[in-house]
């Protein structure tokens, strides 16, 4: 049964991770009001299922819920288009291009707006691993938990995600 001490426990566990929750929701849904909705729903769910949290990593646990809620939002907002892209990923065939252009080597993604645009262009399945790794500094083990994939897949997913980010930056650099 929920009571006041449960609210207190909830605050202690997750109070510090609300920024992480909002950050992931914002990157995945791409807008503020959706991120607001997603975080509210997620907090409510986390609270409801508090008894299922067996201790351990509270941030990863909350982010798992936020990710699910964000995907639910995406699915409803844009059909199954985005999810389909994630589902079709083949980990066996990483697209490591060796055809590097000379510009590719001089591109520095120091322009914040450019980097944001490039990152936003990635499908959620790739965007999320970059956010979780570079912005939240989660370990591969935690990423596997949050993004619901085998531990062995995390490295190849990140490899592809970074390659795609690089490609996006090259594109923007050329078109800019």
């Amino acid at each position, binding site marked *: 049964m929920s009571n006041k001490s449960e609210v207190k426990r909830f605050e202690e566990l997750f109070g510090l991770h609300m920024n992480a929750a909002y950050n992931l929701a914002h990157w995945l849904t791409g807008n503020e009001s959706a991120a607001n909705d997603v975080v509210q729903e997620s907090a409510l769910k986390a609270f409801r299922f508090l008894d299922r949290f067996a201790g351990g990593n509270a941030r990863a646990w909350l982010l798992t819920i936020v990710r699910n809620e964000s995907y639910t939002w995406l699915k409803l907002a844009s059909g199954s288009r985005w999810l389909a892209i994630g589902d079709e990923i083949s980990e066996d065939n990483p697209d*490591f291009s060796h055809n590097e252009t000379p510009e590719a080597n001089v591109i*520095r993604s*120091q322009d914040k707006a450019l*980097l944001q645009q490039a990152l936003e262009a990635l499908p959620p399945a790739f965007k999320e691993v970059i956010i979780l790794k*570079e912005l939240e500094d989660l370990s591969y083990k935690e990423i596997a938990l949050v993004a619901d994939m085998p531990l062995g897949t995390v490295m190849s997913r990140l490899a592809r995600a970074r390659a795609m980010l690089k490609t996006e930056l090259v594109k923007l650099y050329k078109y800019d």
Partner: protein
Amino acid sequence: MTDIDCNICQKWLHGYLDNELDTVIATLVTEHMASYAGCRRRYEEMKTLKADTKENAPYHNAPADLVQNIFANLKASVQPELSLWEKLRKGFVPAFSTTALAVAILLYMAPPSNDGWVDEVVSEHTRSLMAAHLTDVASSDKHTVKPWFTGKLDFSPPVYDFAAQGYTLLGGRLDYLQHQTTAGLSYQHGKHIINAFIMPAAESDSEPQKLSRRGYNIISWQQNHMRYILISDLNMGELTTLSQLLQKEV
């Protein structure tokens, strides 16, 4: 020691970069990169990209009011009903005289009847149909209706459209039931209008209670600290279908 090929290295260099490789494999990668300039260059490139992302990708901090709202709502949702004694102590019940107190206690102890809320629900339902005030926000899109409630209610009501199952969401409005602000959702099924009232409840979950009043069918239940009341002139069977759809979603 066996060497690794460039393809493997292209993948492992990410684990290398993120400090996720065990020392044996990390050594293989180091050795490989020492002799292959392409992989070394790729590694430097990815290292730069990682550093730039860490430094320059915007971090979206949660708005302060969102966080405050979340915790305030959770607190409100578990606020226990005050006992009469606490009410007296906190001055909610003015103890003017022993007579007044006796009357207050008698009134308080009178068995709670269903009739209060049932009549209110029936009145709200009829009013919503008569006064052309079915919806404040007319939309079948839950992403229009749900955010509309934000800021108007101190809870976030679940908003779902079941058009596919024959229950089309018409929109939402604010209502006032049982001394609290309530989310009102209207659905249409055939020619029938269904009102769904949703409000926070302190009580634990309860099975749907079905009753009829003045020609209307009513289904009420508690789930996840929310109280749901459906009312319509629709027959009980079809109203039950909607209640089951809702129960599954929330």
